[in-house]
């Protein structure tokens, strides 16, 4: 019998271009490019350009500018950079496709070759976003006609800033504990900047002292920073070799899920995934003694516990109070939309329990509660949050002089109506919406996204009519009268009562 010789030592892995090999096999099996995909992407880009191209261009480069240096555009730029950081952290930012994560991530292949495309994509995104921010800020402080040099200076400096933000996001990826702090910082800076920018806007936008910095100096400094940033990106490609596999694998799963959401047009899954990630990252949860309290309904106590634990996420509703301030002078329909959707978002803060009960009511049966009792209890905390959010927002608009009369009371009274909309929204599960297909000439279209977007908004629109009509008909100096308050109170009470009445009388369903 011939003995089988064992290798003396495992051969060092050859530098195999595994991805190229996989790509070639895939091309051999499926052809080079799917013409349908090209068509869909091209159509999407063209439609997006036609629909939102003009307004976006006006936001980046407004036709009029004061020509005076002011603080507000810079603060706004910081807010957008913070949002960019948060988005990058949600996506990874360095991830690979799910199949690569399964088959290649744990194989003896240089991690550099695996992650180079993601790093390149992140860098290009940072350059584009940063340049747009830089040009937008320049567009607000430079008099017309603007010098081309000033445009270059703004674009380059903005791009350099965004590249450093991307580097920070990448540096956080293999360090989860530090990254969680950075995430909190990013959200706080974003929300804080929004509030500061709104306050500055309300104060009339204080100017900066005119410093004689010629654009060429800004361009040189920005250019130097950009070159440094790109050099550091190059260095990052070396450090990824020593990264553990876990953060890349997790980022790949998340990015894959986002791709699923975009492909299947089913965004409610995203909310569930985000909730799961959030709760998994809570490591210092301690049992409270609120539930055994006799003076509070257990389901309300449950909502309060969730609210307390989600406090790190309260920054967004708090920061978003400032958004309507920007729009006080803009078209009323936009202001109206932002006010109502902002309130709906705030009211949905504790909606996870309702969503999980709608998806699987096993606990409701264990609790032995009727749908009516559950609905009545689950409306209370969202009503208070939404009422508070609306009261503050409308009071701020009142303070700015855009509205006159007891608007903050109207906001408080509209809280329960918004809570009813949020409850309806939380009840809709992925299974109930995502499978509805709408036939179009281009093929069947899953209507999940559209239905998810309008779900609950219909209830909200009807029940908050007094707020909507008031905002349209009663800009200052018109004063809001008490009949409006009465109408909103009646609408809120009727809406909640109807919602409770229509809920199941049996246990185990909502």
């Amino acid at each position, binding site marked *: 019998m011939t003995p089988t010789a064992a290798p003396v030592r495992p051969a060092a892995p050859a530098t195999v271009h595994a991805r190229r090999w996989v790509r070639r096999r895939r091309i051999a099996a499926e052809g080079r490019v799917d013409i349908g995909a090209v068509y869909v992407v091209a159509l999407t880009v063209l439609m997006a350009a036609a629909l939102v191209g003009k307004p976006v261009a006006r936001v980046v480069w407004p036709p009029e500018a004061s020509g005076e240096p002011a603080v507000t555009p810079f603060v706004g730029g910081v807010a957008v950079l913070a949002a960019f950081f948060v988005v990058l952290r949600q996506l990874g930012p360095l991830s690979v496709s799910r199949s690569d994560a399964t088959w290649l991530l744990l194989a003896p292949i240089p991690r550099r070759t695996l992650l180079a495309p993601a790093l390149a994509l992140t860098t290009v995104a940072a350059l584009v976003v940063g340049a747009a921010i830089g040009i937008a800020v320049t567009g607000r402080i430079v008099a017309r006609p603007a010098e081309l040099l000033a445009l270059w200076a703004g674009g380059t400096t903005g791009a350099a800033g965004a590249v450093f933000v991307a580097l920070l996001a990448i540096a956080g990826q293999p360090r989860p504990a530090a990254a969680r702090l950075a995430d909190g910082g990013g959200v706080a800076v974003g929300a804080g900047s929004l509030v500061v920018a709104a306050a500055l806007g309300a104060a009339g936008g204080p100017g900066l002292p005119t410093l004689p910095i010629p654009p060429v100096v800004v361009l040189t400094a920005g250019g130097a920073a950009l070159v440094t940033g790109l050099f550091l990106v190059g260095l990052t490609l070396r450090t990824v070799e020593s990264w553990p596999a876990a953060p890349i694998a997790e980022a790949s799963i998340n990015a894959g899920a986002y791709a699923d959401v975009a492909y299947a047009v089913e965004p409610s899954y995203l909310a569930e995934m985000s909730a799961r990630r959030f709760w998994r990252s809570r490591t210092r949860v301690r*049992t409270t003694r609120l539930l055994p309290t006799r003076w509070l309904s257990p389901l309300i106590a449950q909502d309060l516990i969730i609210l307390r634990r989600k406090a790190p996420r309260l920054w967004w509703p708090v920061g978003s109070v400032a958004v309507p301030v920007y729009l006080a002078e803009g078209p009323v329909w936009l202001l109206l939309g932002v006010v109502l959707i902002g309130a709906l978002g705030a009211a949905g803060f504790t909606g996870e329990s309702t969503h999980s009960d709608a998806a*699987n009511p096993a606990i409701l*049966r264990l609790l032995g509660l009727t749908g009516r009792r559950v609905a009545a209890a689950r409306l209370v905390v969202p009503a208070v949050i939404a009422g508070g959010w609306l009261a503050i927002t409308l009071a701020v608009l009142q303070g700015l002089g855009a509205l006159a009369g007891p608007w903050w009371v109207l906001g408080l009274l509209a809280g329960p109506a918004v809570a009813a909309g949020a409850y309806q929204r939380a009840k809709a599960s992925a299974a109930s919406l995502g499978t509805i297909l709408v036939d179009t000439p281009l093929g069947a279209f899953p209507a999940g996204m559209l239905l998810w977007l309008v779900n609950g908004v219909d209830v909200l629109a009807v029940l908050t009519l007094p707020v909507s009509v008031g905002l349209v008909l009663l800009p200052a100096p018109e004063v809001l009268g008490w009949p409006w308050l009465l109408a909103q109170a009646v609408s809120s009470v009727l809406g909640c009562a109807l919602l409770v009445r229509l809920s199941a009388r049996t246990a185990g369903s909502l």
Partner: protein
Amino acid sequence: MTVVVDVRQVTVRYGSTLVLDRIDLQVPEGSAVALVGENGVGKSTLLRCVTGLQEPTDGDISVFTAVPGRGADFWREVATTVESPSWYQGLTVREHLDLVRVVNGGDPDDGHIAELCVTLGLAGLSDSLPSTLSSGQRQRFLLAATLVRPSRLLVLDEPEQRLDTRIKGAVAAHLRSYVAAGGTLVMASHDDGFRVGVGASAVALIRPEAE
């Protein structure tokens, strides 16, 4: 003695597959019954019918002399683990047990929860979120949530699943005392030792003959 679960001539079909064929089962109050038989004989299906979560194709079922699964009153008397597990994302293990006990009118501080947590080996997991538990721990947590609330009928689908020997013995003793105190138990089980530990009489289901 009062019959709590009364199953008469129940037939269940999934498409052309006959799962249960004219089954009769009467479970008196204060007794324990274990459905036994190989995989696919319809044990879980029969338990789901008893809880009203599934309509039989034919036949009649009454629980506490009423159609099962209707109304909050039914679910206040019946606790079950026949459903796929579910929990609230942001509540800890102990808070879930408090919630279930408080809502069902029990006192969460009477020592019942603490005792069950010790029995089921959950004492060190009070502050954990259910999503962070292993599958075995989750099984024990859901069993605890079912046992922690007051009930008159327990419908359990293989409660011994994924339990280690020590905890299995403790759960069997707990169920035995539940029945001794007047509760009624209907369960499916693959473990004869566990069934004997509970003191449940075996009801063997067999796969119906193909038509």
